[in-house]
């Protein structure tokens, strides 16, 4: 898909359209020529390991830094030439919690209400909405510092959407948040999406990626795959994923890594996932494992998860 976009002009009708985007720090290309479109109303998942360039990309999209080269259109405005034009229409929740911790919930909201020049009526309405949405009603005068991570993230989302933006960029909004709170957070994101807000979300969590309508995988500054989650999963159909559970995951991992017919092996929960050539059946592998001393080895074929896809994509890149 990205090949098709390369060299074409940006699409002003898209929520975000990026062509040939690069950002070089010194000699190091943190973002190394990427192309993608985010359609309006889409929940766009932006994935990639640490340091792959996700945050750098978002910072260019929000015009907080300028690209080394390339073009960006956000909501139809040129984000490089006219960084101010889309400002009122976009929201940003940064990777780092960036509300004022020594201010109260209400004071933080009030500050951004002022910064976005909301009228008194607009502010009152949005404030009530945000407090309700974040579940912070009655805790308006609590210091932000004293909120637990889940509440903070919801407040940050509320603040980022206080001015009713058309698109919100969220940089790992759920890192460090417990699963229940993550669930709640995604419910809020769905609410926003159902109101037509475009969401651009980076995440490390594969289960969250499955919630997105479209995904792009970043690796070392490049997008190595993109498309709807299902399509990406299916792209791996030439290979087969086997779930291997033995008494000793670490030892079986070592064995699998050097076993014939196994392309890739990695820990997945308490078991090991092996990416094997299509001809290697679970029965054959079980027999070989038992012969190697893993008496209680159990091998079952599994549908590739996005994590499987991702690990596989990365290993292909490494091999290339």
């Amino acid at each position, binding site marked *: 898909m990205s090949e098709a976009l390369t060299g074409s002009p940006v699409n002003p009708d898209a929520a975000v359209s990026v062509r040939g985007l690069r950002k070089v720090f010194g000699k190091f290309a943190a973002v190394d020529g990427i192309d993608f479109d985010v359609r309006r109303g889409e929940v766009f998942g932006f994935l990639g390991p640490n340091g792959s360039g996700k945050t750098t990309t978002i910072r260019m999209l929000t015009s907080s830094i300028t690209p080394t080269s390339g073009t960006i259109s956000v909501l139809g405005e040129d984000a490089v030439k006219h960084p101010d034009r889309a400002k009122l229409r976009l929201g940003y929740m940064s990777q780092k919690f960036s509300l004022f911790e020594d*201010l109260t919930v209400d004071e933080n909201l009030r500050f951004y209400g002022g910064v*976005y020049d909301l009228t008194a009526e607009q502010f009152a309405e949005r404030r009530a909405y945000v407090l309700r949405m974040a579940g912070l009603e009655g805790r308006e005068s609590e210091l932000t510092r004293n909120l637990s991570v889940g509440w903070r993230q919801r407040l940050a989302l509320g603040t980022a959407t206080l001015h009713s933006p058309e698109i919100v960029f969220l940089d790992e909004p759920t890192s460090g948040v417990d699963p229940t709170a993550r669930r709640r957070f995604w419910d809020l994101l769905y609410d926003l999406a159902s109101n037509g807000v475009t969401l651009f979300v980076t995440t490390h969590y594969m289960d969250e990626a499955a919630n997105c309508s479209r995904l792009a995988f970043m690796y070392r500054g490049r997008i190595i795959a993109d498309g709807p989650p299902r399509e990406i999963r299916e792209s791996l159909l030439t290979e087969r994923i086997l779930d291997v559970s033995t008494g000793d995951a670490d030892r079986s991992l070592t064995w699998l890594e050097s076993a014939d017919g196994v392309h890739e092996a990695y820990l997945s929960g308490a078991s090991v996932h092996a990416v094997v050539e299509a001809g290697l059946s679970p029965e054959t592998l079980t027999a070989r494992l038992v012969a190697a001393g893993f008496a209680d080895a159990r091998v079952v074929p599994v549908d590739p998860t996005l994590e499987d896809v991702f690990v596989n994509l990365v290993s292909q890149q490494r091999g290339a």
Partner: protein
Amino acid sequence: MNASLTRIGAIVVKEFKHLIRDPRILLAVLVTPIMQLLLFAYAISFDVRDLSTVVVDQDQTPASRTYLQSYTSSGFFKVVGSVDSVDAIDAVFQSSRARVAVVVPAGFQEAVDRGDKAQVAVYVDGGDPNSARIGQGYAVALNQVAGQKITATWAARQGLDLSQAGRLDVRVRTWYNPDRSSSIFLIPGLVVVIIMIVTVQQTAVTLVRERALGTQEQMTISPLRKVELMVGKLLPWTILAFVDVVLITLMGLTMFEVPLRGSVLVLAVSAALFIFASLGLGLIVSAISPTLETANLIAMMLAFLPAFLLSGFAFPLDSIPLPLQWLSYLFPARHMVDISRAVFLKGAGFAEVSGPLGMLAVYAVVVLALATVLYGKRAR
């Protein structure tokens, strides 16, 4: 997007909230200056009180003895002995037995009896300029000598007269500092030094802190403009700095009996320009420093050193090396010290201080513009 009062107001309110939440800052800004004032003012006058002194009585009359006795009783000087001749003073200074020598020449009594100007010479050891103690005493001596009718006789050294402290009726008038209290001379300068330290130090960290917290990025992507942010950041500090000016001035007027001979308006206008210039310096530091530590360090060097050494508040500027004198013009403190002293002690108006006032105005504009430009540059 035009500059918006709502946006500036939002910043101002937020800055004040930070202040309320962090009592350390309020303490640093409102209590520390008072402590500094008390410390400096008392420490400095205490120093002057203890100056070791020898006397040379060439008149040997009741009048001369009474006069010299007044040194002992003045409290400023500690008379450690007497020598026979002016030539012997050199040896005393070299051996550091005394820092000051008072010479009453023959004919003193006659002159007093006739009601003439009685001549007295006071020598101050200038050979130890690094010693703050002597430096300060020296500054006081210099000041006190200005406008005196008693003439100093030894050109290479400076004369000092203290006859008024005794019971002698010699007509002596010191213009700027008639009761010879060093605090009176120092406090108008001290106000400047304290303001400079408070403003530069506090604003130096403000932008760096927002950058470290990530709140700056959140503001960068908002419609907030650089100028609005700068103005919003400056206003609260301007107000606080003014509170400091008023506080220190009031303390000076009441506790140290510093006169305010000039107009409050001249003082206020100059103080405003000086405060803007200092805040601008702080913002520049904040805009270019990568870390809080760097910001603190640069602020220290930029505020403390020039404020203390190059402002002329304690050390007379014409006694420092020429390159340093030129350097002193690069910092706003020197101009403000000039203005402050002129207004407090000489009752100067706008016309008299127009020179340094103009410098301050130019300085403030340039520095603030530079801060705004540099702040934008950092984000790249």
